[in-house]
């Protein structure tokens, strides 16, 4: 969606830089421009036209420090979400960051980048970001803020010890921020510091975070933990889980107990859907079951829960865990009660996992185990506050329903908000200061395991702005703080003991993106109270009420990314819902309520009501509605405004993530949901295959005959030295969607908005299909455990006998000698015959000129190596041909042959589990050639004789024999 205000509303040509964008120089006439162009070419003044920051920034390790215009460079930096960092490498084209990749050296990334990291580069260029310091309704400037917070003025207002001063921060683990806060408190000892974020990592009082080693876990049990697809360390965990899953000696086994349906649950070998209120009982029953299985005395002999099937499931899982004692892991979800998390600790201790597969690490977050840091509720209750600094976050929007933040902000005379947008909170504050995007600022951060990184800017601030560190320094008494200097000063003090001196430390930290040996020491065990609080009795499911779960949206998180059109249009992994949220109900619940997907529900609790459309999702626990946070925004973010429903409005402090006894009623309204995939059953087809461990993919069709194949009509021409191909391991794919956003960022894929999605016109070159692989009927899909849901990334298969090629009347889609199905945009007349004849339906058509309304700022994000397509032409996955050609040219310049594993596509690079592997089939040591020969490898629709270059590796279902009878993978469904 590019419907932002443009400078062209009066019909004039758009200025090169719209108002508010700091210009690189005075406005140029065409004549001046050409003269300068000539001059800069002559002087090779490569710094001339870029938006590089003023301070020295350093590219990633192995690259030459000098710049060649047109050749992108990578810089290491880090992005924080809920206070914890993921290390990144950011591609920069002449001073303009265009693409985010993971930093292979960073423990939270290992080279992968998730949807939020991938999409963050679009947020940088978001034209709806605020551009000015504001006081009341007036435009102000930074000096006015500095005067407001100058020590003398501040002291007069808040008292000598700072009694009237309050700071509200988002969770942070930044060493610099923590140090600056200490300085603030030194200066204003009575000042209050509060931390708020709706979905930050929990603190059990002892500030210990679980750090499982999933590379060694044969059995994993997740208690409502979506550890493969969300949370600050999920990229690492997904990677580690996949490493063990794919290791020799048979795959690991994953059990998931959960209320909603998450990618982790869909990846599970065995899944149990329970209501959130039942989870404590389930965890306790598991502990009892494990103790029974290990023969520990004085334990109940068997786990007990309300119903028999659940008990049997838990007993089998407990036995399996006990059998794998010391080689298993139990993880509890971060939004579970302390009881569940402590029970998970007890389970790991009981199973002897501590020090083997389970470790603990001290939370690096500010205020972890520190009672002096207050909560948002403490702040809302505070009186006599004169000056409140809201340094990030959007509490007016996302505070629990019974915390009156708006009232607080009205009460406090001097409120200063720092944020990227004039959001709900900014509007309620007297002052607003535009924040810097992380790609524009200096800073530092820590990852989940404590590893510290420096955050270096890739671009000079687009709209001006400041960071929290600068405001803190101002409050601490520094007159003109600059983040870069603050950061250097901070680390100079701490890196002094290094023999090579600070400069070398600084350069190394910037280059690598990781500060060596900064991870927190891990502890082999965590204290478990002798008596774990007894599980609360699950609330009785009263007739006509639901238990409602609030989960962070996998796309817009708590709403902070709601203005990001890539994320809005990214299909939600389990429902493929775009542009909004809905109440996810199980088929049984929906049938009981008499609703279908799209029918609007009124959910009511405590006098609050949320009206939200329903969506039927097999796999959600019966009697539960799952809502995603982050929608129904009402700030200045135009893309976000009015999209979806503000689910947070239902949840009070005492039940922030799960609320029982919610009344439900149909309103009679109906919404057409913007789904990218409305059909989930296989209808007797086999695009996804499921095998048992060690079992090869069936080479016969359902009737037992050899698969029929169409005979090739044409002889194949001898090809180029490299033959590009891809394999996708469905057993590793969690369907998280990182590849989709990576593809969108790399290939300038436009967004089409909710109308476009409803009309079936989404442009994603790579989509993730999801099938209910074991459900021949809707009734089967509605089984309480949920269907066996298999995610399948689907992209152009680069068929060797491509059906699209021969039907194109103008040869706009042709085959390259190295095996790519190429799309020649400027030859395409747009008959769309190729799409009709593509059995995979991966071709995308430019129904409108999707780039017409592209703002000047957004245009800066576009990858200059990839054509921006015009209206009326077909487009599709190119196997990132720009990367292939770039690598070939580089190899030829260096006078060597290109290795088979040297090039990777954007999707493969982003994938945390390395499910996608790209490379050449020729050449020694080709990874993709090896995987093609895997017994699990198959081609989708191979009976059509298309000879696709993309091969899939079948999903493995490592069923527990004790539970296998409940659901066997079914490869042969009757035709419907």
């Amino acid at each position, binding site marked *: 969606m590019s419907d932002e205000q443009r400078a062209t509303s009066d019909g004039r040509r758009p200025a090169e830089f719209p108002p508010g964008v700091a210009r690189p120089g005075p406005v140029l006439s065409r004549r001046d421009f050409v003269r300068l162009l000539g001059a800069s070419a002559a002087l090779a003044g490569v710094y001339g036209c870029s938006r590089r920051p003023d301070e020295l920034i350093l590219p990633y390790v192995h690259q030459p420090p000098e710049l060649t215009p047109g050749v992108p460079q990578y810089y290491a930096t880090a992005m924080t979400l809920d206070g914890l960092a993921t290390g990144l490498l950011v591609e920069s084209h002449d001073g303009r960051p265009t693409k985010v990749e993971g930093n292979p050296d960073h423990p939270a990334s290992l080279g992968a980048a998730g949807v939020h990291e991938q999409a963050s580069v679009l947020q940088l260029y978001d034209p709806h970001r605020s551009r000015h310091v504001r006081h009341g309704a007036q435009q102000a400037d930074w000096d006015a803020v500095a005067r407001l917070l100058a020590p003398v003025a501040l002291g007069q207002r808040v008292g000598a010890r700072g009694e009237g001063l309050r700071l509200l921060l988002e969770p942070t683990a930044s060493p610099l921020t923590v140090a600056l806060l200490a300085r603030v408190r030194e200066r204003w000892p009575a000042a209050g510091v509060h931390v708020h974020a709706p979905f930050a990592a929990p603190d059990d009082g002892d500030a210990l975070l679980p750090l499982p080693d999933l590379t060694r876990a044969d059995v994993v049990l997740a208690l409502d933990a979506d550890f493969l697809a969300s949370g600050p360390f999920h990229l690492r965990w997904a990677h580690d889980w996949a490493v063990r899953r794919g290791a020799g000696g048979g795959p690991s086994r994953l059990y998931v107990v959960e209320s909603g349906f998450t990618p982790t649950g869909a990846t599970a070998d065995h899944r149990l859907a329970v209501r959130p209120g039942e989870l404590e009982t389930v965890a306790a029953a598991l502990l009892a079951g494990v103790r029974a299985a290990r023969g520990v005395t004085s334990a109940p002999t068997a786990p007990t829960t309300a119903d028999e099937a659940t008990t049997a499931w838990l007993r089998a899982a407990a036995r399996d865990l006990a059998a794998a004692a010391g080689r298993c892991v139990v993880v509890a979800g971060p939004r579970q009660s302390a009881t569940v998390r402590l029970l998970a600790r007890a389970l790991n201790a009981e199973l002897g996992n501590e020090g083997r597969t389970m470790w603990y690490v001290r939370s690096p977050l500010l205020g972890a185990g520190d009672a002096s840091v207050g909560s948002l509720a403490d702040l809302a209750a505070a009186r006599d506050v004169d000056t409140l600094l809201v340094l990030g976050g959007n509490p007016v929007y996302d505070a629990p329903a019974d915390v009156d933040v708006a009232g607080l902000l009205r009460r406090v005379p001097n409120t200063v908000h720092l944020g990227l947008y004039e959001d709900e909170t900014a509007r309620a504050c007297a002052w607003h200061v535009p924040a810097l995007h992380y790609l524009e600022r200096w800073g530092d951060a820590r990852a989940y395991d404590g590893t510290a990184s420096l955050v270096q800017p890739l671009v000079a601030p687009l709209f001006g702005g400041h960071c929290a560190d600068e405001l803190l320094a101002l409050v601490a008494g520094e007159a003109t703080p600059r983040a870069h200097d603050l950061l250097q000063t901070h680390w100079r003090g701490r890196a002094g003991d290094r023999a090579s001196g600070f400069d070398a430390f600084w350069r190394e930290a910037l280059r690598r993106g990781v500060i060596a040996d900064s991870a927190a020491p891990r502890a082999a065990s965590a204290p478990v109270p002798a008596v774990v609080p007894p599980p609360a009795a699950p609330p009785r499911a009263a007739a006509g009420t639901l238990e409602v779960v609030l989960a962070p949206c996998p796309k817009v998180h708590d709403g902070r990314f709601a203005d990001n059109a890539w994320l809005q249009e990214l299909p939600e992994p389990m429902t493929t819902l775009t542009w909004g949220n809905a109440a996810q109900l199980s088929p049984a619940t929906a049938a009981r309520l008499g609703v279908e997907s799209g029918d609007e529900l009124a959910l009511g609790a405590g006098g609050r009501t949320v009206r939200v459309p329903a969506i039927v999702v097999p796999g959600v626990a019966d009697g539960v509605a799952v809502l995603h946070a982050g929608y129904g925004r009402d700030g200045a973010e135009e893309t976000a405004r009015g999209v979806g429903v503000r689910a947070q409005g239902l949840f009070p402090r005492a039940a922030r993530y799960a609320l029982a006894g919610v009344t439900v009623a149909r309103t009679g309204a109906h919404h057409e949901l913007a789904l990218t*995939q*409305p*059909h*989930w*059953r*296989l*209808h*007797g*087809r086999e*695009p996804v295959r499921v095998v048992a461990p060690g079992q090869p993919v069936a080479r016969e069709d359902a009737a037992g005959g050899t698969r029929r194949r169409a005979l090739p009509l044409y002889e194949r021409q001898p090809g180029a030295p490299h033959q590009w191909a891809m394999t996708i391991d469905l057993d590793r794919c969690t369907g998280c969607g990182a590849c989709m956003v990576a593809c969108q960022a790399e290939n300038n894929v436009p967004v089409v908005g909710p109308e476009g999605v409803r*009309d*079936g*016109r989404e442009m994603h070159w790579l*989509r993730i*299909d*999801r*099938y209910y692989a074991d459900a021949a009927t809707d009734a089967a899909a509605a089984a309480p455990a949920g269907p066996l849901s298999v995610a*399948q990334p*689907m992209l152009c298969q680069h068929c060797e006998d491509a*059906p699209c090629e*021969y*039907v*194109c*009347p*103008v*040869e706009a889609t042709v085959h390259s000698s190295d095996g790519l199905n190429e799309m020649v945009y400027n*030859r*395409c*007349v*747009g*008959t*769309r*015959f190729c*799409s*009709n*004849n593509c*059995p*995979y*339906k991966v*071709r*995308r*058509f*430019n*129904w*409108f*000129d999707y780039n017409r309304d592209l703002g000047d700022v957004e245009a800066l994000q576009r990858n200059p190596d990839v054509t921006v397509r015009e*209206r*009326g*032409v*077909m487009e599709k996955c190119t196997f990132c041909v720009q990367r292939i050609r770039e690598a070939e040219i580089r190899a030829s310049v260096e006078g060597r042959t290109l290795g088979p594993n040297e090039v990777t596509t954007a999707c493969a690079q982003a994938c945390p589990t390395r499910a996608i592997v790209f490379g050449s089939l020729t050449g020694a040591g080709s990874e993709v050639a090896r995987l093609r020969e895997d017994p699990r490898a198959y081609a*989708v*629709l191979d009976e*059509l004789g298309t000879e696709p270059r993309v091969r899939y590796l079948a999903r493995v279902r490592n069923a527990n024999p004790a539970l296998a009878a409940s659901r066997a993978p079914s490869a042969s469904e009757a*035709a*419907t």
Partner: protein
Amino acid sequence: MTPPAEAAAVRAAPPERGWPVLRTTAGDAELTDRLLAPIGTTARWWWILFALSGALTLLYVALIGYTVARGIGTWGNDIPVAWAFGIINFVWWIGIGHAGTFISAFLLLLNQKWRASVNRLAEAMTIFALVNAGIFPILHLGRPWFAYWLVPYPSALGVWPNFLSSLPWDVAAVTTYFTVSLVFWYLGLVPDLATARDRLSGTWRRRVYGILALGWRGTATEWRRYHVAYGLLAGLAAPLVVSVHSVVSLDFAIAQLPGWHSTIFPPYFVVGAIYSGLAMVLVLVIPVRHVFGLQDVITERHLQCTAKLLLAMGLMLAYSYGVEQFSAWYSGDVYERYAFLAARPRGPYAWAFWATLALNLVTPQLFWWERWRRSLPALFTAGVLVLVGMWLERFLIIVASLNRDFLPSSWHLYAPTWVDLGILAGSLGLFALLILLFLRFVPLVALSEVKQLRHELARERP
């Protein structure tokens, strides 16, 4: 005045149980005057219809402009249904364009006397239908301004069209058919234009018809050459009737989409095309003969023959439908079976499937009975129903096949937009407008042929 004996002979002429091919009592001169009378008509109904169809044509022009300016996204097409109204309308119109040349060329070659009175109108219908048919494939392109890239010409780009694709052949087939049909029509018109030049009053009229008549004087040599040329063109046009819709059918049949990928498509499409064309002939001829009082020239015999042909084509179409379903079942292919045996009868477009069967297969069964073959309201209604049915058949083939193909993940429903509906209505408006202009400015019955037929019939008197 014609001698009564001759008139009686004409009336009694060929067998067909009192259904003469011509039952006029008029002599040559009177016939000429009567058949030229519609030219220059300024009847009230003409103006009303002209205003109506003119308005629809303006809508057509406006929506074409809108589509070209905004993009094909103004239509309801999506992925997977990348073809919809544009191609449905194209196939439908080109199908309608089959009856004219079929009636003219085939029946001429088969020496069927009943063609003489209706061939002119049917051929005009063909030309006008082809005008519409030509608009859609260009308009539906993403970049219509590059449509000429489908034509093989020595391009500076050094690229030829891809002859493996059916689309360049489609362009060739349709343009050839249009050209030959136009020339055939015009050649047949020349003697009548000369008659108009000679018989009509008004200087300008006579000048215009004089120029268009290409100096025709009606000498024996001219007539001899005329008949040779006309016969040759008929011989050229007849196979084109078969080839053009066969090639159009390949636009679908060469794809591997279940519902398209079928070897029966060429004959199936040709039959369907002639079927819809005959239906359009009925829809046009019945009112035209009524308003111009031509019942003695376009007799019940013509309608009767058309109805019989309609029945025959309907039966062939039924056979094609049957073979399609049978092949799908017999193939054992999961995709084919789903497309034909599940998606069509029970899927989201089941209504179109059952409506197609009812309209196209049940309607013509009426004409087993002579009673219905005589009934003008029945014939007219049947024509309309078959036209609707054939449009729905193309909707079914295109939309219902595309919307559910191989991977269930990509299944998506299709719905037209107001632009789609407006363009369809506009194309009907343009067609009606052209027919109205034709009625006003061109001799709508082949004068010379009818007069010749009259003499032939008189000679055949036993």
